[in-house]
C-alpha cells in the first residue's frame, strides 16, 4: 500500500482538513482517505494515510468529476505531509490489529 506515514495528531488534522474542504462548500463528508494505526513493521506506532495515485484520482463529484487533486486544499494538505514524494509503501499486514481474532 502506498501512502503517507505520519503522527496520529497530523493524520487527524489532515482528515479534519479533508472534511473542512467539503463542509465549507456545504457538502456532506462523503469521501476521505481514512487513516490507520500502524500496528507492526518499521513504522509501528505511527499512522498510515492511504494515498496511492488511484485514491488521489478518485472521481468525487461534478461533470466532469473533480478529483481530490482538483481542490485547492489538496496542495496544502499534501505539503503538510511532506509532498507526494514523501509517500512510502507499507505491507497491509502492518495495519492489522493483532488482537483481532477471526472466528
Amino acid at each position, binding site marked *: *500500500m502506498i501512502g503517507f506515514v505520519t503522527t496520529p495528531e497530523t493524520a487527524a488534522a489532515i482528515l479534519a482538513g479533508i472534511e473542512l474542504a467539503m463542509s465549507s462548500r456545504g*457538502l*456532506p*463528508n*462523503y*469521501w*476521505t*482517505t*481514512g487513516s*490507520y*494505526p500502524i*500496528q507492526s513493521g518499521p513504522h509501528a506506532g505511527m499512522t498510515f494515510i*492511504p494515498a*496511492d495515485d*488511484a*485514491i488521489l484520482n*478518485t*472521481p*468525487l*463529484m*461534478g*461533470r466532469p*468529476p473533480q478529483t481530490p487533486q482538483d481542490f485547492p486544499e489538496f496542495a496544502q494538505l499534501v505539503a503538510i505531509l511532506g509532498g507526494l514524494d514523501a509517500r512510502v509503501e507499507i505491507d*497491509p*499486514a502492518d*495495519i*492489522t*490489529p493483532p*488482537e*483481532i*481474532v*477471526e*472466528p
Partner: protein
Amino acid sequence: MKIGSGTIGKLMIGSTAATKAYLGAVEVWSGGYSFTDADAEAYVSAVITAGATVSDSQKETIDDFYVAEKLAGRWSSISRFYLPIWGVAAANAICLKSGTSGTWLGGITHSAGYFTSNGTTGTFRPNVTAATLGQSINSVMYGCLAYREGTTNRAHVRLGDGTTPVNLFRDGGSAIFTTDCGISGGFSGTGPAGAGFVHGMMMVSRTSTTSWRYHQRQSGGVSTFNGATTSATSISADQWYFCSRGGFSDFENADIGLMILGLGLSSANGEALTLSLKNLWEGLTGLSMQ
C-alpha cells in the same frame, strides 16, 4: 403546452425527442420524465447534482421501485439504501431513504454499475449504528448485491469498528455467515460457501432470537437458509461498514452494486425484497447479476 385542445407529452424533431420548446425567448414547455413519487424525484435530483447522469428510463425505474416498495409495505423497513452505480463518489454515497450521505474511505474504484474496494483500505461507512437505525436483536436486516465475487471470497458487510469482527457472507468453511451483527453470543448458520457462492443479492433478516434467515438470490433464483436459535441478548454499538472494517485484514474486493440496512422482514418479504432489488439494479445498470 397544448396543441389545439390536447396537451402534448412528447415533442419530436424528426426521430429526436426535444426536451424544451420556446416561443421566441420564452420557454413554453419542458419535457422529460415526470415522477410519481416525490422521494424518488428528490433522490434523482440529488445524484444529478452530485455529478451522476440519469436517463429518463433510469428515472422511471427508480420511481417505479419507490412506488412498489411503499405499496408492498416494505419501504418502512428500509433504513439506509445505497446505489453505488453512478461512477462518482458523491452520488454513490447518497442514501435513497434518508437523503443523507455515507462516507467512502480509502481505495475505491467507482465504476458504472458498481464499486470495488482495493482490498486493503477501501470501505464504505454509512455513519450509523444499529441503535441509530432502531435496529435491535429482534429486528435487523442487512445485505448487499455482489455483482461479481472478489478474489477473497470474504465478508461484504460488517458491524463493528472495535476488535470483534462480525461478518456477513464470510467464507468460513461450511458456514456462509458467522458471528453476525456483534450480537452477544453470536449466531451462525449454514449455507453454500466458498468460491462461486459469495455473490448475488445477499440479505440477512432477523425478527426474533429464534427467527432469522439468510436469503441468497442469484441468477437461478433465491435460496433461504434459516438460522439456529441463539441466546444472543444485544446488538453491537459499533458503526456499520461495508466491505471491511478499516484496519482489519479481512477486506474483500467484490463488485458491489447495492447496499442496504434496515429492520427485520418476514421470510416472504425478505425474498420479495431481494427480487425487487435485483430487478432495480439490473434495470438501472443493464448488467445481469450472476
